[in-house]
């Protein structure tokens, strides 16, 4: 293995005009640059989606508030959901996968660099079109509108009769483009992992991050395609007189629900698996122990991949399925908790007996573990169909899935940012700002999302722009809104940390965390070609072997 860097002057010439730099970024096919483009795009949309959430929380501060109109509120939650899922979570996770997978498996790039660039620009165009709906949503007569059909876009709300103009077409096409991009990237990740591993790295020696992204990509291929097909059918309905979902012409609203959720539920796992990947890489390094039960972790991942494909109709417990269907989707949904639970136990096993270092990445991992535990348990509650008849579509569900997405996915992403930022930029993020960010965010998160469960139990449905006084919801909603403000401040600190550390952060060096996977063997930031000579590995922790030649992993695996 090589740890030296061969500087190639031509690639690093200083003093280029900015147009040339811009041109390089726009035309790049380098997996690291595309990864960064994905991440920057997602961060921009994260701010937009976050502002949408803040406006909604201001509206819900007290009963019968009139901060925004119902029309605006409905557009806000539609745009918030669509933005956060399709243009924040997906691209940011693909960004990390793009950046990290080749480096961690000892490859010089993704298998299909041009497809990679194509996929990114498709996704970016999708996001752009979604927001262009603000201008073009109602055609050219001047009254632009964003879509207001909810991020599930349930039929028949999307039919011409209920959604005139073009706003929901922008939604359809945005989601479809993002879907094409996702499928392209998924194919790329699978091909890269299956065919570009460095010598010695058989599947059983791959970092867990690669395994989890492999399974995630397989799931994307299976689940995003039905959604894209459904979008095409919806366009046929709206413009070519098809009647798939047009209930006024005998179409089926339930058909759309199946199409949407056969994508929608596995999507949750598509998002959480890469986060499991971050946790599985970061927890061992800061516990100073290898991951506990690597083969079981791989098995549990594959198991989640399969079982999570058979749980979608738990989003449809209230549509009047018969008792057998409800029972079936109850048990499959509960069953997916088993491999997920095994993962939590294995991370616990990894920390057990270790010497845990509470650097900022590890703090976010610990936050993830506690919060994901709670999110999983409220998930088990909602898996019980009768419980869901009460709490489905209530604020309890909103709290549950934000616990997964914010408490789980976002915390894992913050961990990943603090962990890999030094590799990506060559500078450390500020630890003190990081800890401030962590604690503020923990406080804001729990104020918002712990509290949010209760109005659901007290009968508050989601997607309402205002609510009736006297039902015990007012004070709780106020606390929820105050929590979001605290989270917003924490995010600002994070963004400031990202920006200021880029210039002022301490030099990171190749391996600031004393870690074990291949990306830490190259310079920070890594050169365009990643590895001057392709490394060869003999175990899952090649850098451990290098640092401990007297006691290498390869003896035990």
């Amino acid at each position, binding site marked *: 293995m090589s740890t030296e860097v061969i500087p190639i002057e031509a690639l690093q010439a200083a003093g280029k005009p900015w147009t040339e730099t811009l041109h390089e970024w726009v035309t790049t096919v380098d997996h690291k640059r595309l990864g960064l483009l994905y991440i920057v795009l997602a961060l921009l949309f994260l701010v937009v989606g976050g502002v949408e959430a803040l406006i909604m929380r201001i509206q819900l501060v007290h009963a019968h508030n009139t901060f925004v*109109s*119902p*029309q605006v509120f*409905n557009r806000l939650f539609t745009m918030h959901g669509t933005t956060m899922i399709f243009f924040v979570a997906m691209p940011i996770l693909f960004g990390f996968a793009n950046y990290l997978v080749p480096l961690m498996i000892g490859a010089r790039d993704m298998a299909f660099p041009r497809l990679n660039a194509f996929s990114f620009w498709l996704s970016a165009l999708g996001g752009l079109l979604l927001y262009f709906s603000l201008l073009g949503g109602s055609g050219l007569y001047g009254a632009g509108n964003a879509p207001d059909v909810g991020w599930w876009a349930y039929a*028949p*709300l999307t039919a011409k009769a*209920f959604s005139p103009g073009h706003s929901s077409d922008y939604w359809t096409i945005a989601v479809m483009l993002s879907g094409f991009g996702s499928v392209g990237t998924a194919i790329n990740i699978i091909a890269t992992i299956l065919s570009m591993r460095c010598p010695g790295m058989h599947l059983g020696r791959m970092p867990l991050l690669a395994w989890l992204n492999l399974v995630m990509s397989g799931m994307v291929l299976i689940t995003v395609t039905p959604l894209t097909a459904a979008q095409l059918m919806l366009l046929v309905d709206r413009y070519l007189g098809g009647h798939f979902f047009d*209930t006024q012409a005998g*179409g089926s609203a339930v058909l759309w629900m199946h199409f949407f959720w056969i994508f929608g539920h596995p999507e949750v796992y598509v998002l959480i698996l890469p986060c499991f990947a971050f946790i599985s890489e970061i927890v061992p390094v800061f516990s*100073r*122990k290898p991951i506990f*039960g*690597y083969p079981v972790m791989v098995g549990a991942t594959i198991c989640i991949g399969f079982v999570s494909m058979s749980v979608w109709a738990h989003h449809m417990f*209230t549509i*009047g399925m*018969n008792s057998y269907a*409800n029972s079936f989707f*109850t*048990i499959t949904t*509960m069953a997916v*908790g*088993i491999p997920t*639970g*095994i993962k939590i*136990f*294995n991370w*616990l*096993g990894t920390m057990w*007996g270790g*010497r*845990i*270092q*509470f650097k900022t990445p590890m703090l976010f991992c*610990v*936050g993830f*573990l*506690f919060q994901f*535990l*709670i999110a999983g348990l409220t998930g088990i*509650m909602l898996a*019980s169909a*009768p*419980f869901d*008849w*009460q*709490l*489905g579509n209530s604020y309890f569900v909103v709290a549950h899935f934000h616990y997964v997405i914010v408490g789980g996915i976002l915390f894992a992403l913050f961990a990943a940012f603090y962990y890999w930022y030094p590799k990506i930029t060559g500078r450390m993020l500020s630890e003190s700002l990081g800890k401030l960010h962590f604690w503020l965010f923990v406080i804001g998160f*729990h104020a918002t999302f*712990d509290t949010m*469960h*209760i109005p659901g*139990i*007290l*009968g508050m*449905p989601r997607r*309402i722009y*205002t609510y009736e006084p006297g*039902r*015990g919801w007012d004070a709780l909603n106020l606390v929820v809104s105050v929590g979001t403000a605290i989270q917003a401040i924490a995010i600002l600190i994070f963004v400031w940390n990202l920006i200021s550390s880029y210039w002022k952060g301490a030099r990171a060096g190749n391996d600031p965390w004393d870690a074990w996977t291949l990306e830490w063997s190259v310079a920070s930031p890594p050169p365009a070609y990643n590895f001057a000579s392709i490394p060869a590995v003999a175990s899952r922790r090649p850098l451990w072997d290098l640092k401990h030649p007297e006691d290498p992993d390869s003896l035990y*695996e």
Partner: protein
Amino acid sequence: MKFPLKSFEPPGRIALSLVCLAAAGRADNSTSIFAPAATPAHAIFGLSMFVLAVTGLIFVVVFTLLAYAVIKFRGRAGDGGREPAQVYGSTQIELAWTVIPVLIVVVLFLATARVIHAIQDAPKPASAVDVTVIGHQFWWEFRYPKLGIVTANEMHIPVSDPAHPTPTFLKLLSADTDHSFWVPTLAGKTDLIPNRVNEMWLDPSRVGIYLGQCAQYCGTQHAKMLLRVSVDSAADFDRWVRAEQQAGAQDAKVVAGKRVFETTACINCHAINGTAADGRFGPDLTHLMSRATLASGGAENTSALLRLWIQNPDAIKPGSLMPAMKLNDADLDAVVAYLETLR
């Protein structure tokens, strides 16, 4: 190093405080799922307590283990940079924490399946009351096919005595988009979906008003598609049925208002039994004054608000499909006077 112990509230405690909340909110306007007043809601309440207990126990155990690991195994200054023992896994432990969750899932599933079956496959007794519920943007239509009644937004059903049960069976339909019928104290929700017939049942054990609202996003005014269920004693219910079966009042004093009603766009959408008005796009107004609210619960049924509702519906429920009628003051007063005779 610390970790966020304080900010985590165990679900057990949350549950407990919720039960207190539910008890405190056990007034007539409670919409808490923990204040059940009918068999389906009771069955779900019992199941939720069981599921909460099991998940609460799992939470306490795993939380304790995690907290212990985080505190006990934190790195200390005196470690001298030595690495801890490198442990790669343990088959026995892996097996244990696979088998135990499997057993828990089986138990939870069996308890759940029982309740699913008990609620969904309950036989319908001959004494049951039938109501057809039709969801509209953004109001509820209630039809009693056996009794020949059509009304809106406020459903009357009889209290069900366990000795002589008179449950109400709802047939759920939609006229436009998806809706969902949710009165948390009586039962879980069931969706109203166009081109589909759904069913649910209620057997309230106490007389009173039970509140709920649409729980499936159905368009602009989803938020103000509120529900009131009035559970009446057998005698009160009979009285209500007889009153509802009458045609609309014909009071000579308000004939001017009736004429305005019958000669403007009102009749395109509204019906008043016994008059020329037979529109079905909006709520039936034959007995408008028997209802406590207007605009599907959006406003109290008072003279002033009724006037406002006719003149400028957006002031009460922006985005509702009721148009501003743009009547002159005389006609408006006449129509309001007429509507107020529809008892």
